[in-house]
């Protein structure tokens, strides 16, 4: 029996070579889901370009034929795969574009292709130069540069170094727009900023800065093909501590106080502090640590003396706020979080599925609303579990929050037995309901994929929607880019 190809199969094969295009049903199916229980969305063909020119050709072909494009990176999204156009859409798998384009040690810039894994980029920079780039804690291993930049509202900034956001770290991007044209922004190579301004550190712009238009854009306007990052020296010394508290109030008070001195204690070098619930502590330490509210903190320093001083200052603050240093299991967990050789917080975050299949209930409230968000979310989850007949032994969870003086994240990761399809359906239902519930209170997720974008777009003002529509019409006139994202 002769198989019927996707209408664009031969044209796409001419662009990338037959080896790198497939319309086999099983290949398309393998691109149909993300790491959540959301139902599959199976597109019609998958193509793996290796160069800017190939991406441009694919976008031009898609425009000529009005065929939707669904960009794909590490497929680490957490809100369901892009809807696209089932049976027809072109999945553009960017992971073949995985080169480091330029390492500028003088100006501490690195420019990389969008399909490179962030973990690989970081590992190579660390091994070859002792440098790192700005990363989110999760996802870490799975994400590509492009997926991370376009898929998270702050390119990961809000999670990893909340005080600064992405601005200082993502210096520029190169994008193939939906209209097939190529634009370079910010301080990437070839942009007007770097060619005319002597020092990119000045962040002097000769035009409005539009890099962030593409950060968190979820492929709405085009396909990211390159990102330029600011690099920083990997800290020589890492130190950590775990502090325990009798009540959430004491722990939160301490957390807030620590946040206020982040700028002094942790300038530039990333640090972390996580406030974990008693149940979370028990789960993380396999029942070895007492069930108490715990703050894990980690500091990076140039030498032992600096690290000791930072930890000493943190200890003093904790003591003033009514907390104390935790027991060995908790301290050990803090050590794991800060130490990349033991997995690190990144590993923990990247593999939040470490205990099996999981669903993330995570939103980003303003700092002052974190306690309310945390407690009411917890109550909401418990109530819905009860209503839907989900018993405690069917799921386990980690609960924690993190953030800075202005805002943060409350996170509930629910692990479940994914062989129980009835349970999976209930969690899928809860996941959608939770974000609706949270959005009504002004709490939105940080990751911009699938359902999350549709949800958030519903809360845009009509004026903002019009503005976005104008941009969309200008940059992607045929609306071929990622249909269904942000309700476009």
């Amino acid at each position, binding site marked *: 029996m002769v198989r019927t190809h996707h209408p664009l199969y031969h044209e796409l094969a001419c662009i990338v070579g037959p080896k790198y295009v497939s319309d*086999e049903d099983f290949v398309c*199916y393998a691109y149909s889901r993300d790491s959540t229980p959301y139902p599959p969305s199976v597109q019609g063909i*998958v193509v793996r370009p290796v160069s800017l020119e190939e991406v441009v050709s694919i976008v031009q072909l898609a425009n000529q034929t009005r065929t939707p494009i669904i960009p794909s990176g590490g497929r680490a999204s957490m809100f369901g795969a892009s809807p696209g156009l089932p049976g027809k859409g072109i999945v553009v798998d960017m992971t073949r574009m995985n080169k480091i384009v330029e390492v500028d040690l003088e100006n501490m810039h690195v420019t990389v292709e969008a399909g490179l*894994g962030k973990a690989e980029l970081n*590992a190579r920079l*660390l091994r070859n130069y002792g440098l790192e780039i700005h990363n989110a804690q999760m996802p870490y291993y799975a994400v590509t540069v492009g997926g991370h930049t376009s898929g998270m509202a702050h390119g990961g900034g809000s999670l990893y170094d909340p005080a600064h956001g992405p601005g200082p770290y993502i210096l520029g991007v190169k994008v193939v727009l939906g209209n097939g044209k190529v634009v370079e922004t910010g301080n990437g190579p070839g942009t007007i900023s770097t060619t005319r301004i002597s020092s990119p550190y000045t962040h002097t712009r000769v035009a409005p800065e539009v890099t962030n238009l593409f950060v968190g854009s979820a492929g709405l306007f085009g396909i990211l093909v390159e990102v330029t990052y600011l690099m920083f020296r990997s800290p020589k010394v890492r130190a950590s501590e775990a502090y325990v508290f009798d009540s959430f109030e004491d722990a939160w008070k301490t957390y807030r106080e620590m946040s206020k001195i982040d700028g002094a204690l942790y300038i530039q070098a990333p640090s972390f502090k996580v406030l974990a619930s008693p149940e979370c502590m028990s789960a993380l330490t396999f029942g070895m640590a007492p069930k108490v509210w715990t703050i894990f903190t980690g500091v990076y320093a140039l030498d032992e003396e600096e690290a000791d001083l930072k930890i000493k200052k943190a200890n003093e603050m904790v003591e003033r706020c009514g907390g104390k240093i935790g027991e060995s299991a908790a301290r050990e967990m803090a050590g794991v979080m800060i130490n990349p050789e033991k997995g690190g917080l990144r590993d923990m975050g990247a593999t939040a599925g470490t205990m099996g*299949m*999981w669903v993330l209930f995570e939103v980003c409230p303003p700092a002052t609303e974190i306690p309310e968000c945390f407690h009411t979310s917890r109550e909401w989850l418990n109530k819905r579990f009860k209503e839907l007949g989900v018993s405690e032994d069917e799921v386990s969870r980690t609960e924690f929050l993190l953030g800075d003086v202005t805002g943060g994240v409350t996170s509930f990761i629910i692990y479940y037995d994914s062989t129980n399809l009835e349970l999976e359906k209930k969690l899928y239902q809860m996941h959608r309901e939770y974000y609706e519930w949270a959005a009504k209170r002004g709490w939105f997720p940080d990751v911009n994929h699938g359902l999350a974008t549709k949800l958030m777009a519903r809360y845009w003002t009509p004026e903002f929607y019009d503005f976005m529509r104008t941009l969309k019409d200008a940059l992607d006139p045929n609306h071929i880019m990622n249909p269904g994202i942000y309700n476009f």
Partner: protein
Amino acid sequence: MLNLEALRMDVYKCARCGCCRSKYDQNVRGVCPSYWHSSGFETNYSRGIVLVARGILEGALNYSKSLAEHLATCTTCMNCVQQCGGMNLTTGEPMTNTPRIVEAMRADIMELGLAIEPHTTLASRTEKDHNPYNERHEARLNWAEKLDIPNNVMDTMFFVGCTQSYRRTEAAIATAKILQKLNIPFGILSDEWCCGSPLLRTGSRKLTGELARHNVEALKGAKRVVFSCAGCFRQFKEDYPQFVGELPFETLHISQLLSDLIKEGELKMTEPIAQKVTYHDPCHLGRHLKIYYEPREVLRAIPGIELVEMYPAKENAWCCGGGGGVKVSYPKMAVEIASDKLLHAKEVGATAIVSACPFCKTNILDAVKATNSDLEVYDITELVAKSMGE
């Protein structure tokens, strides 16, 4: 019923976190060699394969020739299992064992008559001559002609395997000479058949069972069976019990035996070998059986040898590319993967790669030839025999 059905739970437990594609840090340098050297679609590595398996179990997909071709790119190296982001909290084991899923899918494909030609040829050749190399069964013992090895069952038996019997006879000879020099009485089977490893990896389950039953029956009476082929060793230790139940003898790899003898002071190697070598962990010995220490101990005991570690090594080691039927299905890809290994060895200044598996040695040698590399390639037994004055 599909073979895959038995692994339904494993399939559903995959969290699709993607670590099996992109884990990379100071110890791990990429995960799936097939992914990097094939078309690189999601279906060329663990996560996509498991999702396809789910599609088949749920009736959304069917097996096809084309799917068989995709699945044939998996070397079953187990690095995806090693780097799996999911962990069973009760057992501490990774959630998903994709090589097992791949083997079950290949078995389904074989039974449905959809297998690729190299896989069916492998099976028919082995059925006919008891080896996959298209060699005469009568020639199996030619390598041992001048070694005066009894071929009756003794307390210690040396299971040679097809690759050492026909292709890497130097490793078989070295192993035999080591045992003789150590005054360990041992025998080899007069009617040894293929262990079945390449067949089980490529879906021929029924034939594998026949081979297993024959070999175990032939070895009855032995107290221990020594292997210098990692593939045969893994097959006996891990896979034979599912066909024949508990084995009636102990199994051990030559590196384990030698390591024990070194510790007991019964093996002394005196001839220096002045060479900077690196050890390639065969997947079947390393990740499959967790034997990392013993081969290194043996190499360190050889005077003059400087042992350096590649990045990556041990549990994170890069597969040679030859396993899982890839060598026969996609020989070019197998050599390309092995060529990565040469680069890793060069990076650390090694002048030779040492393995403990004749199949790995063959594939690495092919890469040396293909890239005009000046690296030397040895089986660990060759260096030990040399240092013992053989």
